[in-house]
Every structure is written in C-alpha cells, then in structure tokens.
C-alpha cells in the first residue's frame, strides 16, 4: 500500500536544524496492522504525520497506493488524504461544539456524499462502535473511552483504506484502552490497514508487525507469529 524510500524530515529554525526522520525506508502492505514504538522524540509521530500526509517530507520518496505523493501540494495532498486515510488521535480531537453524530459526520462533509447517505453511514458506524445511544451528546458529556470510540467511528465512516492511530490509548485507563485495541483488531480483521503509534508493548502485541524507532531511524522490525 505504501513505500517510503530515504524519507527524511528536517525542521529548521534560524539557529537549529533538527532531523526528526533520517532516511527512512518502510513498506506497509494492504491489510497489515503495524505498531510503531520507540522513546519520546524518536520520530514516531512525525512518521505517522508524513504517512497521513499531514506533513511533507524534506527529501525522499513516498509512494501511496502506487502514486508518488512526496511532492504534491497541500490541496492535492488533502484530496488523497480524504479519499484514503482515517485518523485516530491520542487526545481524540473532537469538536467541542458539535454533537457525537455531527463530529462523525464531519468526516463525510468534505466528500461528495449526499445528506441522506451521510446520516445513514453515521448511524451505521455509531452502531458498529457502540455509541449510537450517545448520538446527541457533546464530547464533554462522554467518558474518555466513549470519546475515543467517537474518534474511531469518525475515522471509519469515510471507509478509508488506511487508518492511522497516534497513541489511541494514551489518554485512557486500562479497561478503556483494551476496549479500543480490541476494536482496532476487529477492524483489521475485517480488512482495514492500520498503522498505530504506541508506547505500550501490550497494545503493540495486537499488531502483526512492530517497528521500533530511535533517533529518527528504524531500529528494528519484528513480525508477530501468526
């Protein structure tokens, strides 16, 4: 699904140059569940942002679904992103002013999907993650686990080819964390490709492949026995 070759991301200020990613080579196949691990500041989130086209690489090649995307402008990246990628964040990133249903619907607003179909898809996905009974609630009225389920629903509703999860359990207690991980596992089993950044070895065990990073490089990869 995606191939990265010599992908680098360097942040420059007037006085300092920081290499966040240093010539990364990484392939991820369709249907994989990949966990990315490493200490804070090793470049996990930067890698995920590049993968999700939220950021652009300083150099290297990034082929997504057979097309080179490294040199695309912001508007083209937005097009590729919204057609193919769903996001789940550690801090949920729900819009406080919108209800649960509206937050989920937001992911379809920028697709050419009619209002009736949007409503139907939102209901389906809410049922799927078990949040339908909270459809009219505001995020602030939900528990952390429930908020993350809304975020998952939002990531799923546009039926993306790839789901990127940035420490999806980081703000959750153990029970809610496990609940979210089981949900991701279930999604993967039903065909979704998932790349997840995590600090938790236990949660990394849900993935089929674990990529360990250090100082902006891939230190090692290990596949879980099937």
């Amino acid at each position, binding site marked *: 699904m995606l191939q990265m070759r010599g992908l680098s991301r360097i942040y420059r200020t007037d006085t300092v140059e920081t290499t966040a990613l240093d010539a990364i080579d990484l392939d991820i196949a369709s249907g994989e569940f990949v966990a990315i691990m490493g200490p804070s500041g090793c470049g996990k989130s930067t890698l995920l942002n590049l993968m999700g086209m*939220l950021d652009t690489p300083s150099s290297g090649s990034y082929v997504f679904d057979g097309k080179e995307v490294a040199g695309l402008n912001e508007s083209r990246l937005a097009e590729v992103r*919204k057609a193919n990628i769903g*996001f789940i964040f550690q801090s949920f*990133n729900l*819009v406080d002013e919108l209800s649960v249903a509206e937050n989920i619907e*937001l992911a379809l*607003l920028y697709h050419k999907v009619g209002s009736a179909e949007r409503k139907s898809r939102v209901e389906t996905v809410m049922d799927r993650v078990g949040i339908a009974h909270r459809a009219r609630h505001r995020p602030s009225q939900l528990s952390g686990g429930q908020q993350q389920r809304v975020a998952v629903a*939002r990531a799923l509703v546009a039926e993306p080819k790839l789901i990127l999860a940035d420490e999806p359990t980081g703000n959750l207690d153990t029970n809610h964390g496990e609940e979210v991980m089981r949900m991701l596992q279930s999604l993967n089993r039903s065909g979704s490709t998932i790349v997840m950044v995590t600090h938790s070895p236990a949660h990394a065990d849900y993935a089929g492949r674990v990529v360990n990073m250090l100082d902006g490089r891939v230190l090692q990869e290990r596949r879980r026995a099937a």
Partner: protein
Amino acid sequence: MINITGLAIGLAACVLILLYVRYEQSYDDWLPDAERVFQLQTLYEATESGGEEMNLQMSAIVAGRALEKDYPGQVENVVWVRSFSPVILQDGQASVTEDLRMVDGDLFAIFDVPFVRGSAANALPDTHSIALSESEAQRRFGDQDPVGRTLTIVDNNGPVDYRVTGVFEDWPEHSSFSADAVARFDLGAQFADREYALTGWNNQQGWNYVKLRQPADAALINERMPAWEKRNIPDDVGEGGTTNPGDFQDYRLTNIRDIHLGEAQAASVTPGNDRFTVTTFAVIAVLVLGMACVNFTNLATARSSQRAREVALRKVLGASRRQLITQFLGESLLVTAIAMLLALTATELLLPVFNGFLGSDIAVTYFGAGGILLPVIALTLVVGLAAGLYPAFYLSRFEPAQILKANKSAADAGGSGQLRNVLVVGQFAVSIGLIICTAVIYGQTVYARTSDAGYVRDGLLQIENLGYRGVDGRDQQVVEQLRRVPGVEAAARTQIAVDPGGNSVSRVYRTDSMEPIDLGQYSVETGFFDAMGMKLIAGRDFSNAIGRDDSTTPFPIEEAAERAFAERGANVIVTREATRRLGFTSPQEAVGKQLRSELTQSELGLVPITIVGVVEDARFRSLRAPLQPIMYLMRREGFGAIAVRYSGDPARTREAAETVWTRNIPQVPFDGRFADDIVREQYEQEAARSQIFAAFAILAVIIGCLGLFGLAAFTAERRTKEIGIRKVLGARTRDIVQLLVWQFTRPVIIANLIAWPAAWWLMRDWLNNFDARIDLTPVPFLLAGALALIIAVATIAVHAWRVAGTSPVRALRYE
C-alpha cells in the same frame, strides 16, 4: 490596540458631535439678559384658498408698535430691524455692507454687546448714527479711529449721512442675529411715501426685537396673543369681501435662545437649524460611542480564553472576586482614559475641518463655564465602567479548579458567544443604517441640485441689486446693452429669480366664485421666459405691442392711474400649478379665461385679468418649499434681478456683464452669479450635513470592522483545533475560509434585516420634508447591505486565510 483605537475613534466622534450639539443648543446664550430678549414672530396657518403654512421670524412694523403700546408694564423696549442692504458711499466710493442692520431705535439697549470704541449706551443716540463691527471698521478704515467719521447710506429717499458713533466686537457666530453695522434711521421719513409699510399687518420687511422688563412673563403674553390680535388687527375690506389678516396669522414672542432651533425658520436673520437634525446627530453620537463600548466588551470577553488561567491563578493565590472585579474595572478605566486622550487630540486636530464643513466656530476649552474637562472625565468614567462592567463580572466568575484541572486556557462560558453575536448584529445594524441614510441624503441633495427646475440652469447668469436706490431706472439701459453682448442670447428683468428672498402673494377669484385662491404674483418683462429657458405650454408670451399685457402703474402711487388700471384690467401668464389650483382641467382650458385679482388698492376693487398664456412650473426656491402657483404680470419697472441667457465662456460673459453694469450704474456694486452656483449655495447646508453623515457612517463602519477584525482574530484562534481537525478530515483552505467567513456574514445579514426597516422609516420622514423628492427605492438598502457584507468579509478573510493555511499538525498541537 484594537480596543484603544476603536474606543478612541468612538470617543472622538462622540466628543465632536456633542460639541456640535451643545454649540447648536447654546445659540445666543452669550447675550447678557438673553432671558429677557425676544423676537416677535408671525405664524401663518394654511388657508382654504391655498395659502401655505409658513412660520416667519419677521413681523410687521405695526405689530411691534401695538405690543409696546398694549404692554407698557411688561415691555421695556421694542426695536424694528429692517431687512435691507443699501449702498454705502465712503469718500465717494460705493460699496455694500453685507449685514447692515437699519434699526428704528436703540438696538444696543436690547443687544448689550461689548464695545471696543464708544459704548452700547451711547452708540445709537439718535437717527443718522451708525455703529460698526470691529471687522467692518477695520475693512473700511484700517487702523484709524472711525468714530466721528461719516458714511453715506443711499436709501429710498436718497443719500443720507450717518455718523460713526462706536465700534462693537464682532457678533459671535453662534447667534441668531448678525450685524456688521447697525444704523439708526428715521422710520417715519423712510416710509413717508409708503404708509402701508407702517400700518399693514401683512407687510413683513423686518424683525421686531422685544426686551421685557424683569418680572414680565412672556408665556402669559403669548397666552393672551389671540385676544390681542383680535383687538389690534383691523379688517381688510375689499370687493372680495371683508377679511381679517388675524384669521390666518398668529403672533408669538420667542426667546432669543430658542430662535435658532425654533419652529419659525422662514425669513431668518441667520440660517437656523432644526431640532430633528440636532437630535439625530446626538443619537448618532451615542450610537457610535455605544459601538465602541460594544467592541470593548466584545473583545474583552473574547479574550477571556487568554485570561482564564490568570484569573484561576490569582484566585488560587487568594484574590477575592471583588478584587478581580476592581482589577478589571481599573484596566477598563485605564484603557478608556488612554483612548480619551487620543480622542481629545483627534478632536482638536479635526475641529478646524469640522468647523469648515458646518460653517461654525466651535472651540474646545477645558476650563471655565463652557469647559469640557468635567464632561470629559464623566464620559471617561461612564464609558470605562459601561464597557468594563460585563467583562469584569464575566471574567471574575471563572472557577479556578475547573480551569486548572482541565489544563485549558480556553474557558469560554456558554452564552457569551451568543452575546457577542448579538452585539455584532447591533453594530452592523447601526453601520448599515447610517450608510443607507447617507446614500439617501446624498441622493436627495444631488436630485435637488440637478432635477428639472422648470428653467434651464446651465448658461444662466443672474444679476441682482436692481432694487438699490442708486440704480435710478438705469437698469433698462443695462439690460438693453446686455442683449448686445456677444454670446448673450436673451436678457430680461424680473421680480422673481433663482432663490428669491421675498414672497409676493395675491388673491385671485374666478368670475363664478367668491372663493379666493392665493397665487404668487411677480413682475417680469418680455423675454423673461426665453431668458430663463421656461417652456410656454399653452397660449402666448407677453408682447410689448399689446397694451393690456402691460400692468405697469406709476410709483409713488397715482390715484388716477391706479383707477384706470383697475378698470382696464390686465393680461397675465400663469403656471401649470396655478391652472390646477384655479380648477382648470388643462393649461389649454385656462387660456382666455377671465379672473379677478387684488392688484391695486383695496378700495378700487378687484382688477379683471385674462390668462393669455400658461408656462411650465418653475422651482425658484429650495425643494423644501412647496411649489408655488404663480401669476406673472408684465411690467416695465419694480424688478430685483436680470436673467441673462448666454452661450459660450461663462467667465467672459460675466466679465462683459460687469463692464456694462459698472459703466451704467457705478454707484451700485455689481452682483452677478451663475444659477448653478446659487442653487449649489441653496443646498450647501444639506450637502454639509450629508458629508458629516457620511463621515460618521464611515466612522461607524470602521469601528464595526475593528470589532469584527478583533473578534475574527480571537475566534480563529479559539477554533484553531477545530480547523486542524477539519483539515485532517479533508477540508481545503477555501472550505475553512468559507466556514469562518460565513460565521461572521450571518450576523451582518441579520443586521440588514434590522437596519432596513428602521432606515426606511427614518428616511421616509426626512424625505417628506421636501416638496419634490427621490423615490425610496430598494437600491440604497441593497447597496448598503452589500457594502457592509463586502467590508465584513474583507476584514475577516485576512484572518481566515492565515489560519486556514496553517499546517494541521501545528493546529492540532495548539492545545
């Protein structure tokens, strides 16, 4: 910064307008004993015969005399001031003093103005004495002492020498009276050949000023006025029946301080104003200041997200709510005080421009009786507290635990967003309303200047001063020579011209009715309609070859000639409006019809007249005045002006006309003005007001936009995370811009819905003051709405682009 700038603009506008309002309301306050000085005014009621309602500041000579006679215990002094500017000869040179006031008594016993030479008590000891203003003395005599010098006034009775007795300080601008010179003349001798001027109750040629004794009660005198009128005003007995001028006239004593904004504004000494305009300006001042306060409140609550943590920390460290409220109110007062300092600087800088616009001499003084220091301090306190009160209570109520626990900087309490929206709607409603008003006032002013007046303004030169004694009948040779000037197509003398000062009305009767119809009655000579470019729509023009066309009778009056005229009758030309008033169904129907009119002494009866022609209506006066139905008579003398129709270079024509005038009448100054300029002057005040209105509309829009700009900035910041999320989910920059722009255009659209009906109602009332007016179409409303929308979108689009262009990663890290 936005807060201080917005508030400073609002305060400057408010201070300027309030200075103007106070200036308008303080006319004649400076005059010693102002509470005892009154003007006797004449109020004409509308009559069934078509007489218009008219409130005159002038009153008949006889009225003042009768008042003095009937109230000896109350009236201390009555002086009649004549509306007349004769030629003055100084060392043989003819000149005119713009505001020469001819008075029949000691005016300075009523107007106790300060003197720089001589004294008020001795300035007008007898007839043939004259006092000059400081500027006039300087203009005429330079640095020499003018007291004792002689000025010769060429009045109706010929040249009369006047001795200069004193020099008074220039009359203050904010006065309903003005004078460059005051000359005491012999009233009896002056009107010896025109006794009707002394005795006629319908003869208003000047103003009666009355000084009451200390305990006298003007209200009581006014209350008794109807009985006094009945007692004093004699019947007019004529062929048309017996009438009494008192039936449609009322008299009233108006205190000098109430003249400028009073009900009676016709025939005023200095241009007056109306309370509606002054009140409107005061309301605008309050609205503009309100808008600035709203900005302050809006931005302060919007910034609450930034200050929540500070409030929480202060509370944790022991600050009470009262202390926090005091802190925030203190900040608000400090900001207002700084804004006020900027506003006062701006006011002082702008005041000369403002004065230039309005022709006023408003000055800023901080100390003393008229000082603005105390009002300014009061305004600062009121604005500081009004603007700061809500934010102070709002910010100080944050719960520290909640804010610190949530580790949030944003603590946007529910409801405040709604309030901000309501305030933005209010601000834009005011701005849109002012834009609409400006557009309508401007449209009406342009219409007034350019609409078809019934005569052709282009290529028309008007020469006045024909009424001066020094002309001595030589105006006829002037007009004959003018007709031979290259480029002059027609020239004719007339009693009525563009912007006439006087009004002459005669009663006309149909042969089958004794119901009088009031028509304006003016003398013109042949060629007048051609010179004015007026269209003859039925019948024929006057002809010198037809004896009955000529209505000239000798002056001074000769009994036999008047009798012959009354028997012979006259041919007249009337306007379209006159035919309508007379009951004819068309101008053509009126031609050849016999009527009767009061054209000579009442004892000689009504004069038979025949309509020989009908001309199109012409508006000689301002559009505010109703269209007067007119009957033109052809005469060979008694004119006030010459209308000159020319083609080619205006300056050269005027120069040639001046040469002709000066060659024939060197004793009287040439006064030739183009009709375009006269009309422009007629609407100068309206134009100035529309410009001031426009300036305040622009100010209101600027203040509104400053507020919107600040709000957009804070909202964009507050919504940074949301924008990031939307971008992650596929929103393009333009989607985000659209989202933010729509958030702020919605209140502007709602503001239109509030502003439109209010402005429509206001402008409909204002336009009703004009006899001819523009239609109140949707165009200014739609334009104002569109303009406000464009300005609002442009204001927030800058922010929207900046925020929408931010990388979503950075946006999501925001919190």
